[in-house]
């Protein structure tokens, strides 16, 4: 009986020694549940902690292939903030801790799954020391501004062509008017010289012209 108690004490103290704040192979985790979920925030309790340990064991399994269990994830130094330290022990040897880098790789790989288990994001479920891999904003090609530029310049080009065409047409029209006007003046003056009233087309633009003397 005393042996069993002694053994339990040894194990728990060993566990306590394995997981401690600022442990060399451990990471600090911080959750900001209220910030993420507001009114729909859940309470952090032992069941949630169990879920965390299970999620982390899942992550280690996915990365490593070995059969990690919930008991391999040790947690300590819980605070009301909802932050704590954790370490991961090897399934083959419960007294040996898994290397920091391996834990980091595992967390990085399954970060999304761990986040969604808690309805949190990279920002609200922080692993201090493991920066999240940010999604690269992919610039769409061709760049949208070039498309708009093409549209606007096309319209501008059409505008220039329109202006040039209308100015050329106006000049032609003016020349024609002047030509018909001069012809009619010649006709009218010829008619007046002959003394007969001819039915010429009355051109209004020359009605005030001093060249036509009033008869």
């Amino acid at each position, binding site marked *: 009986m005393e042996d069993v108690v002694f053994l339990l004490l040894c194990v728990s103290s060993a566990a306590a020694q394995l997981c401690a704040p600022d442990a060399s192979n451990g990471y600090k985790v*911080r959750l*900001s*549940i*209220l*910030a993420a979920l507001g009114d729909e925030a859940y309470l952090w309790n032992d069941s949630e902690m169990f879920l965390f340990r299970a999620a982390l064991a899942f992550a280690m399994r996915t990365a490593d292939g070995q059969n990690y269990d919930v008991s391999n994830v040790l947690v300590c130094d819980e*605070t*009301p*903030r*909802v*932050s704590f330290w954790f370490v991961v022990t090897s399934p083959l040897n419960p007294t040996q801790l898994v290397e920091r880098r391996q834990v980091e790789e595992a967390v990085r790989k399954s970060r999304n799954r761990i986040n969604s288990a808690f309805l949190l994001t990279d920002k609200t479920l922080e692993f201090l020391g493991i*920066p*999240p*891999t*940010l999604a*690269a*904003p992919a610039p*769409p090609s061709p760049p*949208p*501004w070039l*498309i*708009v*530029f093409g549209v*606007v*310049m096309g319209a*501008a080009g059409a*505008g*220039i062509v329109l*202006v*040039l065409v209308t*100015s050329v047409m106006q000049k032609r029209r003016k020349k024609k008017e002047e030509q018909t006007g001069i012809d009619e003046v010649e006709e009218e003056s010829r008619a007046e010289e002959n003394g007969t009233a001819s039915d010429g087309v009355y051109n209004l633009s020359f009605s005030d012209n001093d060249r036509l003397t009033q008869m």
Partner: protein
Amino acid sequence: MRLVLPNPGLDLRIPSYEDLDRMDKEEDDRPKWDNKTQYILTCVGFCIGLGNVWRFPYLCQSHGGGAFLIPYLILMVLEGMPLLLLEFAIGQRLRKGSVGVWRSINPYLTGVGIASMLVSLLVGLYYNTLVAWIIWYLFNSFQNPLPWTQCPLNENGTGFVPECQQSSTVDYYFYRVTLNSTTSIADSGGINWPIVLCLLTAWTIVAICCIRGISTAGKAVYVTAILPYIVLGIFLIRGLTLKGAMSGLKFLFTPDVNELIKPSTWLDAGAQVFYAFGLGWGGLISFSSYNPVHNNCVQDAVILSVVTSLTSVYAAAVTYCIIGFRATEKYDTCISDNIEKLLNKFELPEDNITTSNYEEAFNSLNSSYPDIVLGLDIKTCDMQTLLSEGVEGTGLAFIVFTEAITKMPGSQIWSVLLFVMLFSLGLSTLFGNIEGVVVPLKDLNVFPKNWPHEVLTGLTCALAFIICLLFAQNSGLYWVTLFDNFAGSVPLLTIGLFEMIAVVYIYGIDRFNEDFEFMVGYKPSIFWQISWRFTSPLIVLVILVFYLVTQVQEALTYSVWDPDSEKFPSLASVPYPSWIYVIIFLLAGVPSLAVPAYALCRFVFVCCTKKKE
């Protein structure tokens, strides 16, 4: 006291009253306004420009809020309106553009017209560069998400590019992505091709709208002059519903009567009135000369002054709604960041410190653990500082506004609306600019007489585009600021002064009054007489002298975007290289000195030819 300098041959150079009446009845080649509305809208569009949106609100707020309106309105009445009426009346009477008008009064005064033309050209160059930047932002507003909401990632993808991380996404987008600024005006850094394309767009649109003079520009102003008012109205309604708009409005309009005692307030008000009315550019004289002879120009001057002032106040209200919103957002973010730091350090539950009990919680923690709190680097969140941050000029439009828009739902629409409005404001001012450049070139017979107006406009715009490539360099921002500070300040004041002296003392105030009686039916009242003869020239002279004195005293520095500087992300203040002084002389000195220089050259020329005879 009717001092008039001898001016022989004046009657031969200007059209007589009979000539004017006859010209009014005849159809001649000179362009005419389709209706009075078109004329008023064109003048309003010319006067209301980017400066009304991004300079007046800043001046208003930094010189005592609501109290600034007092010097502004007083100087508008004493300085702005008389000069405005002078330009309108002289254009309408002599029926020529700026060079033609001054040459008719006296050939020795042609320099005033040449100075106006040079100023219009230099200002038009950098103004259209601002329009090109606006076009760039407009083109880039058609995507989701807006490109200035994100920082690019660094190499290993774990964080953002340090330049973006230290400043902000909007700063980075403006200075790096859009302009790719170098760290000095001397360092050219190569041509920025997207900006070249935007400059091409800007000059093409300006050329198309101005190609037939006022017959095309007059139609375009129906859109470009009215659209800004509509968009400002939409922004006002949207702005008033935003959180924190009221704090912005309060900040703007809270009067601080102590500011009225400072001379700098009155100087800034006077300078703002002068630039806001587009006086001295020659565009208003040109526009007025297309009016019928008996148009009531007194009424026009008063209407234009009132409209310009009201629009400035309107734009200021909208601007400060948005600034108030942005400042409130930043304040809330600042407080939340501080709360987070405290919670994380002291391992307190999340709902322990909220925005409502932040002050008490902070004080209690600070008194119990001062060392730890000090080590946390808690920022002081001050609304007043946030409200007065970087709120004038390009910084306002491209940094403050774009940031505020990213926080509004439906950002793309607001962004498009904002930049379309700024584009219209810039474009309508450029119509007056181009008018003030092309018509004098025509009067000076620089181009052959048989070239149609379209060719002149097209050629001017093409040449201007090529010169604008200076601003498309990576150091373009610093060149634009240089032009803004020097090309549009001293020369305009000197031109205004010479204009008043020319009309009152060389053309003759008596003759001018008789012209009024002929055109409008009554002589101008005693207010106008005193203003033209004493108050307005005096005010302009005082502003000019003070401006020169302050400029000469300061060592000339400019602000650069330098990621390596200590004060980054604030702009670092760097002295200009020595060869800049030559450029400054060309920008400010040449137009100002064009008046005496031309008179002197002509005098020498006339003397030489007389001697030969």
